[in-house]
């Protein structure tokens, strides 16, 4: 499986393979579990997409929730605006699916525009300063939403159609993971890794560091927007309070815990933390305390996270590996 056909197959096959499995899961899971499943899926999308900026490119974004908000609000406007819209000649279910798909794409597009906006200051900024700009941007987005009448100000928009189900969320995860994996193995991914390892050296070697940083932000933002759009169409409500600095930090913890630069690490960490948070729901006040202690202890003992930049299969015996791809260092 080489050449163009192989590439296309590798990108399409996961979707084709996942669809029947997700349908099955959808049919089997009781409603509470499917809620948890969607939560996990949303967090996996967030963590993997943030990993593109924080892990692959070595920048430090702490405003991921802002992109989520942009995606969520855009999609919410589309679905509420098109609720009575009926695609000609299609049954209602299929018509809803079309509307939701349009909403998701719109959310991703708007979020990537926002990512472009944040990426531009990175023309001149590095490291900590960039982190602060993403944080500031997140706060500005929140202030804008809270002052815009169309977006429902502080109360937000309620009564969104409950379009998100296990299949949509699962397909979102597949799309994100395929994107991250394909990106990492491509020339573009190598450019991002070069920036992470040594920005000055990468620039000297002819890597367009500014361009790639901006692109990483745009890609990451688009998928954060997808996660936001999926989440609000499950809980049927979107408010600015859902997308605060705390939410951004949750995602950062997931990425750091899993290992910056490791896709499987992000997936595992996001899943574990979401399940942990769900079961800690009763002891809500201890949740963030445990989170922060976890972060501190992790940094003091194992700052590269559980997986570091490795993937899960790097830990498996040699003969099970198909190819030596994905290793960053």
């Amino acid at each position: 499986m080489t050449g163009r056909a192989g590439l296309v197959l590798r990108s399409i096959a996961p979707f084709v393979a996942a669809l029947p499995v997700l349908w099955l899961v959808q049919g089997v899971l009781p409603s509470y579990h499917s809620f948890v499943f969607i939560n996990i899926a949303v967090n996996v999308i967030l963590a993997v997409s943030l990993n593109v900026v924080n892990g692959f490119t070595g920048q430090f974004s702490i405003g991921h929730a802002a992109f989520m908000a942009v995606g969520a609000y855009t999609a919410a406007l589309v679905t509420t605006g098109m609720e009575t819209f009926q695609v000609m000649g299609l049954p209602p279910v299929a018509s809803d699916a079309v509307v939701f798909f349009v909403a998701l794409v719109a959310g991703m597009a708007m979020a990537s525009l926002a990512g472009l906006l944040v990426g531009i200051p990175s023309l001149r900024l590095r490291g900590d300063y960039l982190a602060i700009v993403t944080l500031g941007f997140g706060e500005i987005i929140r202030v804008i939403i809270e002052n815009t009448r169309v977006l429902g100000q502080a109360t937000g928009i309620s009564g969104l159609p409950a379009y998100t189900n296990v299949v949509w969320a699962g397909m979102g995860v597949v799309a994100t993971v395929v994107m991250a994996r394909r990106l990492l193995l491509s020339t573009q991914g190598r450019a991002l890794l070069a920036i992470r390892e040594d920005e000055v050296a990468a620039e000297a070697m002819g890597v367009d560091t500014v361009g790639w940083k901006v692109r990483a932000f745009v890609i990451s933002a688009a998928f954060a927007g997808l996660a936001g759009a999926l989440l609000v169409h499950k809980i049927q409500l979107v408010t600015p309070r859902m997308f605060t600095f705390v939410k951004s930090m949750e995602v950062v913890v997931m990425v750091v815990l899993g290992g910056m630069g490791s896709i499987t690490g992000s997936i595992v960490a996001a899943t574990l933390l979401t399940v942990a948070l769900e079961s800690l729901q009763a002891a809500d006040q201890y949740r963030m305390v445990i989170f922060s202690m976890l972060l501190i202890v992790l940094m003091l003992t194992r700052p590269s996270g559980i997986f570091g930049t490795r993937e899960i299969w790097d830990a498996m015996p040699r003969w099970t590996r198909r190819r030596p791809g994905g290793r960053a260092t």
Partner: protein
Amino acid sequence: MTEFLQHVVNGVSLGTIYALIALGYTMVYGVLKLINFAHGDVYMAAAFAGFYIATALGVRDHPTIGKALAVLVGSMAAAGALGWAIERFAYRPLRNRPRLATLITAIGISFLLEYGFQLPSLQAQGRTFEEVLRGWGWAVPGWLHSLVGVLPSTFPPGPTPRFFPEPFTRIDWTVLGGVHVSNYDVVSFLVAVGFMLLLQWIVYRTRFGTAMRAVSFDPRVAGLMGIPVNRVISATFVLGSVLAAVAALLVAGSRPRIDPIMGLMPGLKAFVAAVFGGIGNVPGAMLGGIVLGLAEEMVAGYTVSSFRDGIAFAMLILVLIVRPEGLLGRPTVEKV
């Protein structure tokens, strides 16, 4: 005109607070190149330390100047100790690791303080510390009663806001035909300026200040020249935290509502002020604080007041794009 002057008065009074907090950020950044995210929470902890001391001393019923000073000094000591501990146990072990690791730890500390302070206290759980001690088989000596009664059973304070007792009675003056100035504004302005001058003297006129600037310039070479780098860094944290405590008490005097997340926004904004003035630059932090305070007050006064929180970050992004080294900072060239 009167309205404008009133905004100037409010803006300067807010700006001095930002300036005091920003000094802590700027000094720590100067010596460690670290954004100490926990600084805003040291400010919060200092406000609570002051609150507990004031409660133990009974400031609410019998406020005196002596008690106000005791609260100030006690809170400064508590904040200094907290700042020292954070540096010693969280940042120092990571000194030679990638800067990102320290930044993440700083965020972790910040969250730990914010959410740790929101946990329910023994009192909220319907127990007292004495009962817990007795449960462990320990008795409390009589002279410790008031202290043991106040602190451990009402700490952590929990998410509900507390109200800081007034250290002295508020007097409002009307000057220049309608501008309101209270004695709190005057006192906090004088105290803030006093501490800034003191800091300026410490940094530029003392041996310790020279050592601090040397560490900021190049820690390794400073170490080779016989400067105790670790001690200088610890002292810098203590100094910054003490200034945060001063800021916290000045705020708590005029805006008495204190809660565990009160440090988040002022902390971020003070950081913006530090960047605005040129991070690592002491006069820059003061200037940045005042400018930010004025800008916020003007925006809140003349446009929609809910834009207040946005202006700081808009300013930040603008400054970083136009002049990343800040107003008074010197541009640095990255060398390989």
